């Protein structure tokens, strides 16, 4: 009898969910212990998308690290960019001009809408509402097209810059964005028709993944995931950055702290974002889009481009008297047009020259002379032309170019110290912590990623519920593994 009981013992079914799974929103891996359909234990495993973004940031200048932030939360890249840029600006002690601030607020809210749309789409699809998915993607596509209009990229935008934004917005863009804001509220109603009062949706979300306000705070939840529990914490209200103190908006909060309340919060937030965008368009002031802070922000591109564009047909000439033969330009040349031995003056094969100016900005001894319109001329003619003085605007532009090169490559001189700056990204509070040693690169860069913090609460939400609720819970905390693993 004992033997029979021993053979007939029951144990939990150990199921591996992910990293390749349609509902884990990326490469989250959950190991579930199931007692029938009931979840006994959940262990999240993260790190499948770890790319070492924080460590990479230490070896890149402040400007070079900016595109890395796109790759963290790739569904709301714009918000990440803004978070990074706002933090770096504070470190540098500069402030973006008003117009840039409004533009950043505007695109940040666009990013919030697109993120919430993707969240709603996948959350609904996980719970089985297939049509909501495609409805949401229709509007998300619209936003992505607007992003494309503003900066040419759809997902990894890298549009904000330290001290402003990359380029100004056109009237055409503003018009089409305004049209979007007029249309969008009716589209939200369309999603809500499908699920808001749907019996099955209510059954799957009300009372699922309940977390009280105190607990949510102590787990470190932020963003709509926290606000669903009734805590009105929003960085945009409590520590306004950009133009958030000049626009009016409400912070929607839930009361029960369940999946349905978090869903309602995000739906209301989309409406608020829509309002913020409209206000930004209406209040958008005229003026510059980059801060006036030489050596701390990128030099103005339009002044530089007049010379640096390869179509300008300029040639370069190495002054034999000045050249020390260090070989820097030789290595910098992508076309291998420069040749010569060490410690002897180098020479340029003019027929290979691309006009890229890499040699020009690399040379420490200013041995290279730029000769406008000199492409295709022989060495003797160039030597003759090199004796003539160079026009003022070209000297200025080349100086700017050298400055640009140094800014991107070596980074600007910045104050020493450390600081933490938080911004409200769609998923929660995104914080950047920098330790600066005064060089052009951060000594230490640390990202407080909301997805990372939220992923830890999964076991708390899932244990005791059914397998199907695990899916609902992954959806409701809104995580992206690119940001979680960094």
């Amino acid at each position, binding site marked *: 009898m004992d033997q029979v009981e021993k053979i007939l013992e029951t144990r939990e079914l150990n199921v591996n969910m992910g990293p390749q799974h*349609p509902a884990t929103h990326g490469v989250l891996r959950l190991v579930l212990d199931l007692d029938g359909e009931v979840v006994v234990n959940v262990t999240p495993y993260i790190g499948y998308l770890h790319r070492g973004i924080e460590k990479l940031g230490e070896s890149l200048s402040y400007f070079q690290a900016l595109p890395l932030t796109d790759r963290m939360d790739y569904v709301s890249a714009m918000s990440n960019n803004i978070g990074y840029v706002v933090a770096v600006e504070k470190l540098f002690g500069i402030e973006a001009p008003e117009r840039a601030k409004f533009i950043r607020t505007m695109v940040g809210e666009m990013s919030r809408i697109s993120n919430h749309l993707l969240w709603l789409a996948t959350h609904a699809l996980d*719970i089985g*509402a*297939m*049509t909501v998915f495609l409805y949401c993607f229709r509007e998300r596509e619209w936003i992505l097209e607007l992003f494309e209009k503003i900066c040419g990229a759809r997902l990894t935008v890298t549009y904000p810059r330290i001290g402003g934004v990359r380029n100004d917005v056109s009237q055409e863009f503003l018009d089409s964005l305004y049209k979007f804001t007029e249309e969008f509220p009716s589209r939200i109603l369309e999603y809500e028709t499908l699920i808001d009062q749907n019996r099955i949706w209510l*059954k*799957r979300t009300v009372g699922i993944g309940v977390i009280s306000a105190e607990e949510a705070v102590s787990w470190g939840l932020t963003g709509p995931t926290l606000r669903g529990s009734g805590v009105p914490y929003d960085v945009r209200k409590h520590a306004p950055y950009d133009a958030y103190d000049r626009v009016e908006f409400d912070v929607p909060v839930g009361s029960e702290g369940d999946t349905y309340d978090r869903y309602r919060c995000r739906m209301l937030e989309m409406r608020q974002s829509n309002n913020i965008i409209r206000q930004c368009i209406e209040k958008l002031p005229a003026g510059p889009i980059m801060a006036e802070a030489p050596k701390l922000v990128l030099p103005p591109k339009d002044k530089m481009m007049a010379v640096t564009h390869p179509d300008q047909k300029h040639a370069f000439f190495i002054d034999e008297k000045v050249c020390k033969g260090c070989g820097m330009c030789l290595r910098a040349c992508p076309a291998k047009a420069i040749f010569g031995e060490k410690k002897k003056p180098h020479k340029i094969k003019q027929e290979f020259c691309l006009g890229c100016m890499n040699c020009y900005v690399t040379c420490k001894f200013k041995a290279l002379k730029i000769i406008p319109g000199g492409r295709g001329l022989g060495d003797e003619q160039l030597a003759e032309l090199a004796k003539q003085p160079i026009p003022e605007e070209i000297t200025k532009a080349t100086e700017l170019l050298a400055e640009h090169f140094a800014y991107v490559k070596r980074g600007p001189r910045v104050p020493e110290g450390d600081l933490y700056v938080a911004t409200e990204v769609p998923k929660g509070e995104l914080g950047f912590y920098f330790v600066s040693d005064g060089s052009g690169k951060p000594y230490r860069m640390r990202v407080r990623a909301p997805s990372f913090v939220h992923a830890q609460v999964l076991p708390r939400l899932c244990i005791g519920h059914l397998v199907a609720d695990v899916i609902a819970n992954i959806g409701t905390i809104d995580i992206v593994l690119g940001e979680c693993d960094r």
Partner: protein
Amino acid sequence: MITTEGLINFGINVVIITIKIAIVLGVTLLHVAYATYFERKVIGHMQVRLGPMRVGPHGLLQPIADGVKLFFKEDVIPENADKVVFYLAPVIFMAAAMVNLSVIPFSYNFVIADINIGLLFVFAIAGLGVYGIFISGWASNSKYAFIGGLRSSAQVISYEIAMGLSLVGVMIMAGSLNLTDIVIAQQNSIFGIFAIPQIVAFVVFVIAAIAETNRTPFDLPEAESELVAGYFVEYSSFRFALFFLGEYIAMFIMSSLGAICFLGGWTLPWYITRVLPFLSYVPPVFWFLIKVYFFIFFYYWIRATVPRYRYDQLMAIGWKILIPVALANIVITGLVKIIL
């Protein structure tokens, strides 16, 4: 005693039945292929997209391309699977679905086997289909498939009860289990279709039929977001296609059953033909197919509209709502029958 005449009659019967089988099988398989196309188009247009458009004009050759693709795919069998049972499962599932076609009357006298226990036969064979599902889940030796198989068996068994009970009312009203007789009984009744007096049973039947065929919102066995594909997750190539075919044929059977038992099969209610007499010249099989496609469209419509139930909620609906309602319906129908 065997006479020449008897032999000739037997021979003719065999030939006729063979032709009928060939027609039914051919039409059904083609129907299944185009039911997938129909589904993708209908849902596509409901979801502001176009559905298949690339293969042939308006994607009309898409189902054929899909079939060819599935046929030429590598047939992967998991190393730890129980090979024999693994091979057998899709065949059982598919066969169980196909056999049901033999008792479905498509039109007056167009039925392969006009047996007296038609309705019971459909239930019995549909019940066998569960074995295919459960065996496949078990034989795959995969946890996902296992959970899918368990869910599916529990679900199909529970909902079979509700469905069976919902049809008892029809049996009482028609006084027969023969599907042809049920249709004729409806033709002779006051309402022309049983869906009006048996409206409760009709609703129960439709819900149970959706659950029985594992379709949204009861598609838990293959819940894409939880179990990826459920019981047939380890199947590939044509074995996968067999499951797919089986599911669509089962859907067709359930729709046919609904049309026969509640909507009057190939007949039209007398009040419609009285108002519009020219309709009676339309071939009856046309009305049958219209009704079946109404059901199939309904399946697709639901799929595009609602989310998925959770396992325990599904069971609660089956046992706590549908079965009591169906039982009450039987009692009331019986009482009415006695009183009248």
